[in-house]
């Protein structure tokens, strides 16, 4: 048989920064992953754990039921300092259609960098930390993002890469209790807020957010303390290490986009169903790359939309599977697809022609030459369980 890997961890389109396998980078937790028996794979230039001995299904279910610890240190952590937060946010808003200027200190918001055609260069998280703007971007895009942002910042703004910091995500319904046990101050944090905390004696910056649809935290700690910090978290009875394989199935069930697959330089936020992340003020006033394209799409509609898809049979439909209508005409393509462990059946997302994008609409998925029945479905496939208040 031939073992295939490409369905698993796709490298985003801007691959100029991806290194060859021989020069893979390591996160501060690399030795710990190996010690825990992880299967390591190259991802975005890093040697990363795709799964531990528990296996992807078990790790997925563990995260949905208790708390999973993910090493996401490969992602880019940036900090922008300026005469004021507003100056930093205004500079970032020149590159992003999102509203970051209205953030209060400790608030976090999802957003994206766009190009002149309204395509998405990367998606990211911004947090206001006092007068500083913190940003987390995708691993495979971080070098390009850094150059892109640095090139446009005014002289009084300073962009720093926090490459000496690790990033750990603790996700799942028990994550709140675990972090509260080690840092009581975290208990009052709600979804999409950030705070400087001391967790088990380690100074860190944590946000209550993640990529699984569950409650949880993303915790930035100095690289030198990361391994001891991860070991402390793993000693808690609810916590198990989780690899990138389950991270992908968890985010797909949560209907969250994977940059490079579901959103790219060739998809706009309007087509991707991400207009909710663009505030009214920015829609009207524009002032970001691709503003005219997006304004035209809001006014006139789009020709294709990102939708959820539920195959009716048991065969998973992977990325790049053709989507056809009931007459057999091609209407789109799957961008992420696989098995949803929480549902016990295959799930997918992709782009279809707007006329076919209604929830419940019958489509077919062309898998290995056969047209398999499927329906356009509401996302998320698994209800989000964020800690909103």
């Amino acid at each position, binding site marked *: *048989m031939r*073992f295939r890997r490409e369905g698993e961890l796709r490298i985003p389109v801007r691959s100029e920064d991806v290194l060859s396998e021989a020069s893979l980078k390591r996160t501060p937790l690399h030795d710990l992953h190996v010690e825990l028996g992880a299967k390591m794979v190259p991802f975005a230039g890093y040697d990363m754990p*795709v799964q531990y001995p528990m*296996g*992807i*299904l078990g790790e997925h279910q563990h995260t949905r039921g208790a708390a999973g610890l993910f090493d996401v240190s490969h992602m880019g952590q940036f900090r922008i300092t300026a005469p004021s937060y507003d100056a930093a946010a205004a500079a970032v808003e020149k590159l992003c259609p999102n509203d970051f200027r209205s953030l209060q200190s400790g608030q976090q918001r999802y957003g994206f960098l766009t190009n002149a055609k309204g395509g998405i260069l990367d998606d990211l998280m911004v947090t206001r930390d006092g007068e500083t703007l913190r940003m987390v971007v995708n691993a495979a895009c971080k070098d390009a993002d850094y150059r892109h942002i640095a090139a446009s910042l005014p002289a009084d703004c300073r962009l720093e890469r926090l490459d000496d910091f690790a990033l750990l995500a603790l996700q799942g319904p028990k994550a709140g209790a675990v972090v509260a046990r080690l840092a009581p101050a975290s208990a009052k944090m709600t979804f999409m807020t950030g705070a400087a905390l001391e967790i088990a004696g380690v100074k860190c910056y944590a946000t209550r957010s993640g990529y699984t649809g569950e409650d949880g935290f993303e915790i930035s700690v100095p690289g030198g303390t990361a391994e001891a910090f991860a070991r402390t978290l793993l000693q808690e009875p609810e916590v198990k290490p989780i690899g990138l394989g389950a991270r992908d199935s968890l985010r797909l069930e949560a209907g969250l986009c994977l940059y490079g697959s579901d959103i790219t330089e060739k998809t706009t936020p309007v087509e991707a169903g991400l207009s909710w992340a663009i505030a009214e003020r920015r829609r009207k006033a524009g002032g970001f790359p691709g503003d005219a394209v997006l304004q035209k799409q809001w006014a006139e509609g789009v020709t294709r939309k990102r939708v959820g898809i539920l195959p009716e049979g048991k065969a998973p439909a*992977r990325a790049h599977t053709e989507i056809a209508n009931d007459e057999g005409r091609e209407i789109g393509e799957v961008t992420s697809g696989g*098995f949803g462990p929480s549902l016990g059946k295959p799930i997918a997302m992709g782009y279809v022609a707007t006329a076919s994008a209604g929830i419940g609409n019958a489509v077919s998925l062309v898998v*290995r030459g056969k047209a398999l029945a499927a329906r356009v479905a509401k996302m998320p496939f698994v209800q989000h369980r964020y800690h909103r208040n």
Partner: protein
Amino acid sequence: MSAIRYSKEHEWVLVDGDTATVGISPYAQEQLGDVVFVELPEIGKKIEKGKELAVVESVKAASEVYAPIGGEVVEVNNALTDAPATVNEDALGKGWFAKIKLANKSELDGLMDEAAYKAYVASL
């Protein structure tokens, strides 16, 4: 019944008379991880050695299973449709894929016995 034989592509064959039961090795199932779907061939399909016999999907990806010997598919393990994880749990037993009526018994000569396959896996 003869002894089990393996291909370099990690399929196994167990011959009984002129029929061979085919599956994937414990090494293969471990490499795949949790199996969530198996697409089996149609009964009556004539297949050549080295051609695609089945598709096995893990959470991560779809992988092809090749026919380690050629012949006609006479039976498939339909139990895998509802319980694909059987491939992980019992790769050499209940996790079999198909039974093939051998077209050419000499094709078995190119396959490895247990000891040779173990040495081959150890070298990977």
